[in-house]
């Protein structure tokens, strides 16, 4: 039988424990209404600070859940905490020594302190980190322990977290929020501050990153990770650069942060990516979250990892039965903190015991890096138990069994009631010299329901702040006047290369989406009114437009080899150019590329752009799935999309300044606009065609540029080839003309961080292009020799210009995004 569990607040006689008295009095005097209003205040603070914990319900649906915090803290007396902290320090030291030994001499295995199988059967053992253990910077710098109060009234260790412990950011946010509400609620209760711990953490980075100019980085899996909030929050609080794997690069045996200004050495990396995902070269090769070569940089000793790759081996309940022995062997001490009685099934005696007493035990896989498996045997049917027995016998090394413990309960506020719930404390320690510093606080997680013993943030549940009662020794510590903001450094020099590249492509794809949509729209509209004027010339002009569409979207062979010219075949090809998801160049394809670039820029674009993006995507999918083929329906959908794209463009241009990342976006969009316009010019204006067709074609061109009215205002005449060419190619006053954009590009390039006195490789083609444009004379290029129907000179110049812009884009990409030459 389980012993009745303790309650944190009440003793066996239902009297309030001494260290809870103040809290209890405060709760008593404020009453439920006040508590409810404080709860609302907490909810508001958390929402306002955008504190989230993402829970994945299934692959597609992500719930960006607000973090929740209970207004009643978990209270521990300073005397008890001091004792616990001594135990935590000992455990951290011990685990560090175990870690170092397993990756160096392995005396623990050779001298039968820890069975070899407990290590080798656990996938957390990184053979790749072989011999790293003796390195000075191979240390368990940061350690978290999950604790709960056991039946003997002491704090017990339930789990160890070593590879990339989470929760510290949430603990900090909880404290800041509690500070805000506790003035009214618990005015009398002094609690120890978290300040010292964070100072220690900052100092650790300072000590480890000794080189000038080097940076410390927090490696995050990205915005989709469940704890992304805390990555952003912590990096900002600890002065670390927040980066994803693609922001980093290994070369010269060192780790570098890529930014538009060049590479910056990363000496220290706080990683929130699990061991196996840190390096696709040597570890899990399907991982996109890590950095190729990271492990080898660590092997050379050029990067400090918090924590080292290989630490996952410590997240191993199979170690529990041997901790006592290891502690005596490595530290010459008795283990201070109690653990749950654990039997490792790899030993025959233990296995026999487990199989015999299975129904009273909890069985767990030792390796949570592969799968989290826990069996509560008490609740299992005989048949299930039999299966479990078989499973254990087949693979005894993989399992432990633990005694089922009733941990203490704690008062929890829910719906104007206070009820007891199970809770566990995550306590954090950081290495300081040869010792560890333990945070005077922690993250308390409360079970989701009253009767549940399972405490897990993934499974729902809520949190509490942990208060260590008492005053700090030093009064000087003021939790710095830190205000968290989601600030992302986008000054040109420091802009991350990943973001810069995405901004550049955002510019290109957005320009391409808009022009493609407009041009297709023109074609669809003209098709709709085709039968209004059933003339041969109309048919021919349409053919020219259709070919232009193939050239513009590069969806070759497309209309160039269309065998049949029935209206159905034409419509099918147009629909394919609009809808095909796998054919490069189609509108859908381009939109996907655009959405992808948008996705990677979530944190620097305005929130509304995100919403717009979602709306556009949903409507586009609806359109893709629809069978309707009528011109009017399609035109309507295209018009809608165009509105979204224009609104999106406006939002992008509004949310960032040019001197920040927008410059990259503008360069991309200008290059793309020019390339597309050159393509349209070649398709539509290099042919000497009948005047009756000319109108149709020039009209489409100007509408695609959304410049029909501008033309009319400027020339006050009907559409004439010479005028249109002058207008869209050479008119310096017209902001959409090729020459105007060209001049702007030349100026934009000068603001870039790698701009030099001499002309760089990416500038050269643009200067050449400018020269060609300056010396172009309309009357000459539009002159026909006898029997010619094509303006060959004009076409040649346009082709040359196109190539120069493509060269410019390639060179630009190489100079700024590849970091090859640094």
């Amino acid at each position: 039988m389980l012993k009745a569990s303790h309650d944190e607040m009440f003793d066996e006689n239902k009297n309030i424990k001494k260290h809870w008295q103040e809290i209890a009095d405060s709760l008593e005097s404020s009453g439920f209404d006040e508590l409810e209003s404080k709860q609302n205040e907490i909810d508001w603070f958390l929402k306002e600070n955008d504190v989230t914990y993402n829970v994945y319900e299934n692959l597609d649906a992500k719930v960006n859940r607000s973090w929740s915090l209970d207004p009643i803290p978990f209270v521990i007396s300073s005397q008890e905490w001091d004792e616990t902290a001594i135990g935590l320090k000992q455990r951290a030291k011990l685990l560090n020594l175990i870690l170092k030994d397993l990756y160096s001499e392995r005396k623990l295995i050779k001298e039968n302190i820890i069975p070899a199988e407990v290590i080798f059967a656990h996938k957390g053992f990184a053979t790749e980190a072989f011999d790293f253990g003796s390195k000075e910077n191979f240390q368990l710098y940061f350690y978290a322990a999950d604790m709960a109060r056991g039946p003997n009234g002491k704090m017990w260790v339930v789990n160890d977290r070593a590879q990339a412990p989470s929760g510290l950011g949430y603990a900090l946010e909880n404290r800041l929020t509690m500070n805000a509400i506790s003035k009214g609620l618990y005015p009398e209760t002094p609690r120890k501050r978290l300040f010292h711990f964070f100072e220690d953490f900052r100092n650790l980075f300072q000590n480890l990153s000794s080189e000038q100019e080097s940076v410390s980085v927090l490696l995050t899996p990205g915005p989709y990770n469940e704890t992304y909030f805390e990555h952003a929050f912590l990096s900002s609080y600890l002065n670390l650069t927040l980066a994803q794997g693609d922001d980093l690069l290994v070369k010269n045996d060192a780790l570098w942060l890529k930014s538009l200004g060049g590479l910056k050495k990363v000496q220290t990396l706080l990683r929130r990516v699990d061991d196996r995902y840190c390096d696709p070269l040597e570890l899990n090769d399907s991982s996109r979250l890590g950095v190729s070569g990271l492990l080898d940089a660590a092997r050379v000793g050029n990067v400090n990892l918090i924590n080292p790759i290989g630490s996952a081996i410590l997240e191993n309940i199979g170690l529990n039965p041997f901790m006592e022995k290891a502690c005596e062997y490595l530290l010459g001490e008795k283990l201070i903190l109690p653990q749950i009685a654990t039997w490792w099934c790899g030993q025959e005696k233990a296995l026999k015991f487990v199989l015999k007493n299975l129904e009273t035990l909890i069985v767990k896989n030792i390796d949570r890096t592969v799968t989290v498996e826990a069996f509560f045997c008490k609740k299992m049917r005989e048949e299930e138990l039999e299966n479990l027995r078989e499973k254990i016998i087949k693979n005894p090394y993989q399992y432990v069994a633990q005694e089922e413990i009733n941990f203490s309960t704690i008062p929890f506020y829910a719906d104007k009631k206070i009820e007891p719930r199970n809770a566990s404390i995550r306590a954090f320690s950081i290495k300081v010299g040869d010792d560890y510093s333990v945070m005077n606080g922690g993250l308390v997680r409360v079970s989701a329901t009253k009767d549940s013993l399972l405490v897990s943030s993934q499974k729902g549940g809520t949190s509490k702040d942990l208060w260590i009662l008492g005053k700090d020794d030093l009064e000087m510590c003021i939790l710095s006047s830190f205000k968290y903001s989601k600030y992302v450094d986008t000054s040109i020099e420091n802009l991350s290369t990943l973001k810069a590249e995405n901004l550049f492509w955002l510019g290109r794809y957005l320009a391409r989406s808009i022009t493609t949509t407009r041009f297709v729209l023109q074609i669809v509209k003209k098709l709709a009114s085709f039968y209004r004027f059933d003339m041969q010339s109309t048919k021919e002009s349409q053919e020219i437009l259709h070919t232009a569409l193939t050239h513009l979207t590069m969806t070759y062979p497309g209309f160039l080899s269309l065998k049949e010219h029935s209206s159905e075949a034409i419509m099918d090809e147009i629909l394919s150019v609009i809808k095909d998801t796998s054919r490069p160049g189609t509108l859908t394809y381009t939109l996907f590329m655009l959405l992808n670039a948008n996705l990677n820029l979530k944190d620097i674009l305005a929130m509304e752009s995100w919403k717009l993006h979602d709306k556009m995507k949903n409507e586009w999918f609806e359109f893709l799935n629809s069978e309707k083929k009528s011109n009017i329906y399609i035109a309507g959908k295209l018009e809608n999309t165009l509105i979204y794209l224009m609104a999106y463009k406006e939002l992008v241009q509004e949310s960032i300044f040019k001197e920040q990342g927008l410059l990259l976006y503008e360069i991309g969009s200008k290059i793309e606009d020019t390339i597309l316009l050159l393509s349209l010019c070649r398709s539509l204006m290099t042919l000497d065609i009948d005047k009756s067709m000319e109108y149709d074609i020039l009209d489409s061109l100007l509408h695609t540029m959304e410049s029909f009215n501008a033309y009319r205002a400027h020339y006050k005449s009907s559409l004439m080839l010479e005028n249109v060419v002058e207008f869209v190619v050479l008119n310096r006053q017209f902001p959409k003309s090729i020459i105007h954009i060209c001049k702007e590009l030349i100026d934009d390039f000068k603001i870039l961080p790698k701009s030099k006195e001499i002309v760089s490789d990416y500038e050269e083609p643009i200067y050449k292009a400018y020269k060609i444009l300056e010396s172009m004379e309309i009357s000459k290029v539009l002159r026909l020799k006898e029997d010619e129907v094509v303006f060959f000179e004009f076409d040649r110049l346009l082709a040359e210009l196109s190539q120069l812009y493509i060269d410019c884009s390639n060179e630009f990409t190489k100079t700024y995004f590849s970091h090859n030459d640094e």
Partner: protein
Amino acid sequence: MIYTIYHKTEFRYQSMVTYSHNMARLKPRETGYQKVLDFSLEIDAFPFEKREFLNMFGNVCTHIVIKNSHLSLSVTGRSRVEIFPEIIDAHIANIKANSITYKAAKERLKSFVAADMQAKQFMFDSELIAPATEEMKAYALESFKDERDLFEAANEFMGRIYHDFEFLSGFSDVTTPVSEIFKAKKGVCQDFAQLAISALRGIGLPCKYVSGYIETVPAEGEKKLFGTDASHAWFSLYIPNAGWIEFDPTNNVIPKHQHILLGYGRDYADIAPLKGVVFSSGGSRLSVMVDVREEELQEQSQEQSFFGFKSQTQTQS
């Protein structure tokens, strides 16, 4: 006996790769019966950085960073290796003499014997070698009776794989699960090695994957063409009280003077000759060319040996 080995691995990429990280494991390792006289590694993309280190299994690994755009990358290892057959013979004799029964081995592996500790890392499933199915274990246990001598049992087991399985290339690749090979009863050397390893680990014995080369001799009267060999794979079993002993189930032999060892690992992933991580939009194609020949022979036929290049896709014989 001295062998010269030429092993070229080439990646061809569909689109330009701006930067790549690669791990080459092409240098044969030294053992008591094998000495590396010469070794060179050729990399054909510039500029590059390379760094050599020893991994946990004692294999030489070379981390190669290609620092500029490239469309292909080839890495070629050239080695001269001396094999000492008499030392191998002595080793095999020693293993036979000290081998123990399957039952004794199981008992010993359950207890703590310092000498067995290193071997225990090869007892568990690994990235490419899944745990054995019940059928596979039963298949192995037909040879491994409790009172049977472990060496004898393993030797018989090797022979049974040789007879029961058909050598067929093209059916499988490195990722084909062993259970599938076991069902289909066909595959190549790599499959037979991995299947044996999985089954032996399944019945509680430490077993490692061995990668290397085997000299092929052309039919009588025919000249050996350059580059027509392939890399080879077999397995090594740990016999407590005796040591590691290698078996080649593809050829039903205990490797002696015809086998040249490249390296050991838990499976192919630990010892893949070339692995690369690139950032590129397209895919890549891998081709491998291997040539192994004994030195005296090579001197006679050197003039003819450099025509008839033939590229092979990665299969192992």
